[in-house]
């Protein structure tokens, strides 16, 4: 009998099929998004485990009387998704929170399973005035803010901020220009002038210090060149006789110093006389 009248399943009505299709579509979207979120979280964990610390900063004198801080950050992406438009920004502040310099690097894409070196450089003007000048003559702690902005796993804009305190050794730490006579004389006279400092920076210093003795009105009364050849961590103290011009008073004046090395001229903060 059943062979004559086979059981025929009735097709569900259109409305029923529509509702069921919408439910399944909803479930499918949910499953896809949950799988995506799971893999994104897994990739994030792998990424966080491999987040590098920025390497130590090196420095050199720049062409326009500045200090250039350079560093490298190696970033690995062991996750499953690329890191798009990854941009590293470095900001250097002194211990009082003044911004000394900032660098912006071009945005790059870091494919999944790759790593890349990001070179960052910050140019800090170190003229006789301004916050950067203290980097030449004062050891201090700098705040190095590293910002990384990127889009992770196509959908998640991410911003990572790393703040570090970096010990800064000044190349002319404790720089002093001292007159060998007191009170400061009025020319004509010959004055023993002592220049002293410690090279607490990472690099040796070789060049010449041009020291100009100025009156309170900024008139040059005399000058002398001090040869410098100091190893990193070494101390420097040299006394030379400087001729003071006739009628020129050093009382209330100051010593203006510039360091000349390899064609670069670096102005040091002025030293006031009593």
């Amino acid at each position, binding site marked *: 009998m059943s062979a004559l009248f086979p059981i025929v399943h009735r097709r569900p009505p259109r409305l029923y099929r529509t509702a*069921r299709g919408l439910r399944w579509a909803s479930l499918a979207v949910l499953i896809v998004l949950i799988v995506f979120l799971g893999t994104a979280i897994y990739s994030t964990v792998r990424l966080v485990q491999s987040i590098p610390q920025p390497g130590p900063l090196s420095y050199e004198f720049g062409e326009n009387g500045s200090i250039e801080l350079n560093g490298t950050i190696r970033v690995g992406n062991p996750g499953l998704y690329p890191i798009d438009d990854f941009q590293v920004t470095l900001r250097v502040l002194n211990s009082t929170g003044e911004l000394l310099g900032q660098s912006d690097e071009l945005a790059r894409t870091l494919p999944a399973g790759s790593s890349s070196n990001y070179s960052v450089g910050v140019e800090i003007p170190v003229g006789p005035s301004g916050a950067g000048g203290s980097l030449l003559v004062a050891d201090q702690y700098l705040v190095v803010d590293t910002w990384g902005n990127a889009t992770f796993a196509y959908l998640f804009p991410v911003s990572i901020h790393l703040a570090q305190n970096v010990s800064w050794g000044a190349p002319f730490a404790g720089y002093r220009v001292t007159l060998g006579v007191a009170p400061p004389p009025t020319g004509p006279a010959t004055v023993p002038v002592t220049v002293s400092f410690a090279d607490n920076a990472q690099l040796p210093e070789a060049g010449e210090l041009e020291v100009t003795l100025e009156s309170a009105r900024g008139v040059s009364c005399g000058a002398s060149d001090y040869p410098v050849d100091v190893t990193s961590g070494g101390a420097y103290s040299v006394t030379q006789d400087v001729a003071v011009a006739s009628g020129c008073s050093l009382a209330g004046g100051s010593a203006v110093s510039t360091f000349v090395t390899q064609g670069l001229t670096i102005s040091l903060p002025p030293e006031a006389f009593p």
Partner: protein
Amino acid sequence: MSAGGASAMEPSETPVVPPTAAESRVPPLGVRLGAGALKFVLLLVFLVVLPVGIIDFLHARSISTPISAEVEVLFGLPLCALIAARGVVRPTRAYGPVTIAAATVTTLFLLYMILQPTYQVSVPQVPISLAVTYTSFLLLLLLVPILTIASGAVTTFEDFRDPGVRLEFDYPP
């Protein structure tokens, strides 16, 4: 009492309509209530108790979270109740509206999350802070309740136009 008493049908004479084959396959209310209660407890654990525990754990360590425990409970409890109720009322006309209500609560929760789309986390004593923006993901996730609302609306319409028709397919032999 009735003028046309011969043709009027007394309540006692109302013919008893035997249940259809599909209706007879619908689980009894007690079974559905039991299953609904079990589902409610499971949902409560995964959608409320665990998230609130994680939120409290993080707050105890001074780590912020994108939503507070109160908000989680505020949206989580009704959502658990509605999803559990949906299974209980599946054979009835309330199935569509309850489905819409559950999906609406989910939509409201996602919209609340979208209003504060960036989660900034910083761990005390650790010099790294992280900010993640998840608007795009939440917008994609909104597709889920929107499709569910559409499904509930179609089911509601179907139940009012052809009551009981879907039981044959919801509870197949």
